[in-house]
């Protein structure tokens, strides 16, 4: 086949695939401006659905909850995970292998299983708490924990492994001699860790933190089983889709898309700027 034809075929195929990926999103966006509630006939242009979205208290509350949970769980996960990564790297091969394999569990397990298992754990705990409280005659052990505590526990549980697997490679790549150099120059082990090892780990720690936030905000299935009566953003979206009437959903989808797009463009810009600055420094 001629080079030209091959190239054209390549491009056509890529356009096809990318259209497949983006057309539904674009259609959603288009109909977010639709006058009527129809999802197939475009009657007129309006911003009403966006306006009503901003006054939709269910969505706004859910958004606030999702953001709060994401930040808190990501923070805790990053700290615990980084500590774990450092601790694990100092272990023998067999221990490391065992812990790493177990840490893979939340990542490879279907989310429904993680969600269901956590739910059962909390239900069992609730049963135990009820028994204990009845035994003691007073409510000393907190019983109804479904809600914020369970959500936080769940989100931390599935986030920490990602932190470990993000920070561990950076730890392995670290030049041990750098740590020794710090000792050589007068640092005790703790000082050496914070002054020399941590700065090297920072990029991995930061990206792990961002990954945790992303996965937390986006999580539906695990939150679904552990939220009790609370609604995170995805759960609120789910209940909206079950009612499947209002184009507010379209508006929400479009906003989310634009936010993600903005973040991508921003990080891309920052990356290329850093790249150019490094190139200049070399020259």
């Amino acid at each position, binding site marked *: 086949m001629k080079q030209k034809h091959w190239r054209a075929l390549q491009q056509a195929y890529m356009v096809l695939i990318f259209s497949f*990926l983006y057309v539904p999103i674009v259609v959603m966006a288009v109909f977010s401006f639709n006058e009527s509630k129809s999802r*197939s006939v475009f009657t007129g242009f309006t911003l009403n659905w966006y306006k009503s979205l901003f006054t939709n208290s269910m969505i706004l509350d859910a958004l606030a909850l999702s953001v709060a949970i994401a930040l808190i769980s990501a923070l805790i996960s990053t700290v615990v995970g980084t500590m774990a990564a450092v601790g694990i790297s100092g272990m023998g091969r067999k221990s490391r292998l065992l812990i790493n394999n177990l*840490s893979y569990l939340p990542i490879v397990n279907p989310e429904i299983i993680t969600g269901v298992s956590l739910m059962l754990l909390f239900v069992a705990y609730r049963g135990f708490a009820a028994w204990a409280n009845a035994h003691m005659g007073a409510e000393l052990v907190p019983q109804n924990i479904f809600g914020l505590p369970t959500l936080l526990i769940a989100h931390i549980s599935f986030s920490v492994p990602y932190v470990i697997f993000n920070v*561990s490679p950076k730890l392995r790549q670290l030049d041990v001699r750098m740590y020794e150099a710090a000792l050589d120059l007068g640092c005790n082990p703790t000082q050496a860790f914070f002054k020399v090892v941590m700065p090297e780990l920072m990029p991995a720690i930061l990206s792990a933190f961002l990954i945790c936030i992303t996965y937390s905000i986006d999580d539906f299935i695990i939150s679904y089983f552990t939220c009790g009566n609370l609604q995170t953003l*995805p759960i609120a979206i789910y209940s909206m889709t079950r009612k499947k009437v209002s184009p507010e959903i379209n508006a929400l989808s479009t906003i989310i898309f634009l936010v993600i797009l903005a973040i*991508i463009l921003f990080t891309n810009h920052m990356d290329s700027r850093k790249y150019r600055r490094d190139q200049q420094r070399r020259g």
Partner: protein
Amino acid sequence: MVQKKSLAAPYLVWMAAFIIAPLIIVVYFALTDSAGNFTLDNLMTIGRYSTVFARSLILAAVATVICLVLAFPVGYFLSRLRTSKQHIMQMLVMLPMWMNFLLRTYAWMSLLEKNGIINRILGLVGLGPFEMINTSGAVVLGMVYNYLPYMILPLYTAMTKIDQSVVEAAQDLGAGMGKILTRVLIPLSVPGIATGITMVFVPAVSTFIISRMLGGGSNLLIGDLIELQFLGNSYNYNLGSAMSLVLMVIVLLCMSFTSSFDDEDMEGVV
């Protein structure tokens, strides 16, 4: 570097309490009845739902194969681009992944409806309205749409490691397109294929959202069944746990099968 192993202690405690213990509880519930006595009844009852399990496996497998076929050229073409372009295209592939899963599936609902856009466009050409939603086909379509990027990325990563000179060497030695594919590209991208299959098949076989939103009530999957036992109308923790156990076994089998081909660990994909 002499790292303090005790730093890992908080994590290990957490892992035991919230990852391992819950799974043990699932096994416990799976093997007991509501009174707490040991029984295999739950596992036996699953036999009644064999059609559901079969459907899940088949649909997930079909979706995985379609994803593989569609994603393979994408991964290859992407890996041949200039590095600067690769970065942007990689972002474009990942963007839909970061959009909310529910919204993406919902988007297809409005497209596939009887009065949806696709039917209206086909109507303009005279083609009658097709019953697209609430079919197994819609479920597969939903799976493919949602998980395609998860197949593209590992394939792309694996193919960036295949230097162009290898392909050119094959051409030099007389291999046509087909031979290059079977003798060079596929063997060299096996780790990516293995990862991709895992990352598509596992969520596909366990989903309940896609089947609920696009499949209607007649296309129940394992995920739906499980959900029904725990939060739905059926309310049988023991049965649900048993189903979860079976699902875990299925997933474990899939993963041990593909990991025999996978020579790198998943850290890069994370």
